[in-house]
């Protein structure tokens, strides 16, 4: 019988009570040479095998591909070096990885690190390196936009797309549309959840995709309810590729609608959208 959905709060409570940084999710005696913290300020870690590290990079590459990252692109990541969004981007960002998302796609990554103080440095990189795609941690968007305004930077001349990455946050479509208007370039979502090693990216049609070979997605319509394959509710993620850490029915703090039908973009699996 599948376990009941568990949220980050549940995992953190378990981690503290049981004095187990893996919150009971570590798999037996598997060799896990990489251990990463799942999220900022939360005492929950993931233990990863070498294959987990490689598969995490493939899952991130799949999301990058949905965003339209192309061979030869530079990709600026304005997020912490310890974030899964960054770690799995390059074979040089996390040990025991031979091909990161950028290596798999023929792109070149550049990490800015994630402090709000580094917004100006992100603009510096944009100005001089002209990355094809710029990924910004959603938490840094306010400071990033302020710097853009203060420097009167026309970033649409420097990058062709901005991907905003909320960490288990819901960003409303009107908010994203407002950023798009303000910056004058396409703004897409790259939703992530560290505790589930989850990445989902928005396609041209405005739907979010998480590769079905990597994840099984469900929704929990109301607290304590049974997960369903489609409909509206909290996103419930089962990670299919992690071996060192079991991620089954992780309840992300994000409200979504999973569509019953495939997306018109042609990607496999059921698309979903964030709800305000």
């Amino acid at each position, binding site marked *: 019988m599948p376990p009941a959905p568990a949220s980050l709060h549940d995992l953190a409570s378990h981690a503290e009570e049981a004095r187990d*940084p893996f919150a009971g999710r570590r798999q037996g005696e598997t060799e896990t040479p990489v*251990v990463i913290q799942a*999220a900022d300020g939360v005492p929950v870690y993931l233990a990863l095998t070498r294959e987990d590290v490689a598969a995490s990079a493939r899952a991130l590459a799949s999301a990058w591909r949905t965003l339209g990252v192309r061979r030869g692109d530079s990709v600026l990541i304005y997020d912490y070096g310890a974030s899964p969004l960054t770690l799995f981007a*390059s074979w040089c960002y*996390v040990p025991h990885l031979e091909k990161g998302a950028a290596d798999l796609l023929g792109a070149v990554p*550049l990490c800015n690190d994630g402090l709000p103080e580094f917004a100006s440095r992100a603009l*510096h990189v944009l100005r001089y390196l002209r990355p094809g795609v710029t990924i910004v941690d959603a938490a840094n968007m306010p400071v990033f936009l302020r710097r853009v305004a203060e420097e009167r930077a026309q970033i649409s001349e420097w990058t062709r797309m901005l991907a905003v990455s909320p960490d288990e946050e819901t960003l409303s479509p009107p908010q994203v549309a407002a950023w798009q208007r303000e910056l004058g370039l396409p703004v897409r979502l790259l939703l992530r959840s560290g505790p589930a090693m989850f990445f989902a990216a928005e396609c041209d049609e405005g739907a979010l995709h998480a590769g079905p070979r990597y994840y099984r997605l469900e929704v929990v319509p109301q607290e304590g309810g049974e997960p369903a394959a489609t409909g509206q509710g909290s996103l419930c993620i089962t990670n299919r590729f992690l071996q060192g850490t079991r991620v089954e029915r992780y309840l992300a703090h994000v409200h979504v609608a999973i569509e019953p039908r495939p997306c018109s973009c042609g990607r496999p699996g059921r698309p979903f959208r964030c709800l305000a």
Partner: protein
Amino acid sequence: MLPPSSREMFDAGEALPPEEIARRQLRSLNRALRFAGNRLPFYQRIFAEAGFAPGPVRSFEEYARNVPSIRKADVAGAVRATGSGRAGIEALGTSRLSNVVMTSGTLGFNTFAFLTPSDLRGGSLLNSLRELWVVGVRPGMKVLTLSPAWHALALLDTRGITRLGAEVVIPWGTFAPRFVPNFLDAVAAHRPEHILLTAPVLRGMIEECDRRQLDVRRAFAGVRYIACAGESLSAPYRRYILERTGIEDIFERGGSSDGMFGGGECFAHRGHHISADLHYVEIVAPGTGELLPPGRRGVAVVTNLLRGRSVYIRFNTEDVAAVIPGECPCGRTDPVIELYGRLTDSVIFEGRIVAPADVRGVLDQFPGLMGKPFQVERSGPEGIRIVMAATPPGEDLTRATEAVRAALGIDAAVTTGDSLALGWKGQVMRGSRHG
């Protein structure tokens, strides 16, 4: 007494006879000059402007005398001019580009370094392996490391740890004070044997233990070694860390992200072992550029002997440094370079440089002043003034003043100033003080 492992080296390249090192370095320098003169636009321009025609160089003295040196401002100027992030120092050949990293923000301008897989699997990897090895990282060891992936050192550590087959624990965050409690929690939760971090973060972790009224030794139980990058560690501070944490040893890592070189200390703690087959480091007088012998303090000028990445030739790091004379007890024969701080943070008297490390070494003798940020300023023709950002109430600066005078043999005054601005790592931002 050195531990037995102190004589373990990563490879035989670290213990070549000095004459062989010199012969190989001279050959590599000529190769680097030839390549730069033929292929790299930045150096073609610099050489032309200096009237230097890259021909065979027969001695290190001739190299120092004839080859123009460059500075960060030159590289930054070239980046501004090209507008492409490249300065014309990128020796990438036909290899695909793997990564771009930023150098430090010195002068308020980050330049960029470009790296190819061939370098990350070749010379730079070898440099990283030797550095990790010398600071005590071994296969199978559990290493807690932070990963600020904008910095070259993080990339090289990643590849080095992979090749060594060490396990890693990566907590969330970066080297800013707000993440210190989280790093302490990570040490307690995972019990690493080795930690790679910066000195301010280590200091912050111990302060955090004190705030939480934790026994520091219990918090660091299981940790054998710590290696700190980013600033020189004073002798009192090292003693303090060993005593408080109970670890076996603490190592300093140092070099320059502008200039893309570095190395770690061995168990003898005489300075940084710099791989002589990968980098050639000269110490020159700041004013005249005269090549200085071992033991004399000047600024470090580095030439990378690598390709497949951005290459720095006679790059003046503007870091105060000296080659430490004599044989190292660890048996390595490569040059040992000690770093003392930025030249702009130092005071130059005739024939003498008083650097931040000199002052740090004295102030760290006083528990209340240990690790506290400060700025050194010239005060009259023969003296210095040390302005501290903050000191604990009741700290006797008169005693600190007397200690600085006695240790450095110059007129000095230690004062406080509330107008020192601190950067994101808690460091003093030079030039930020007004009035």
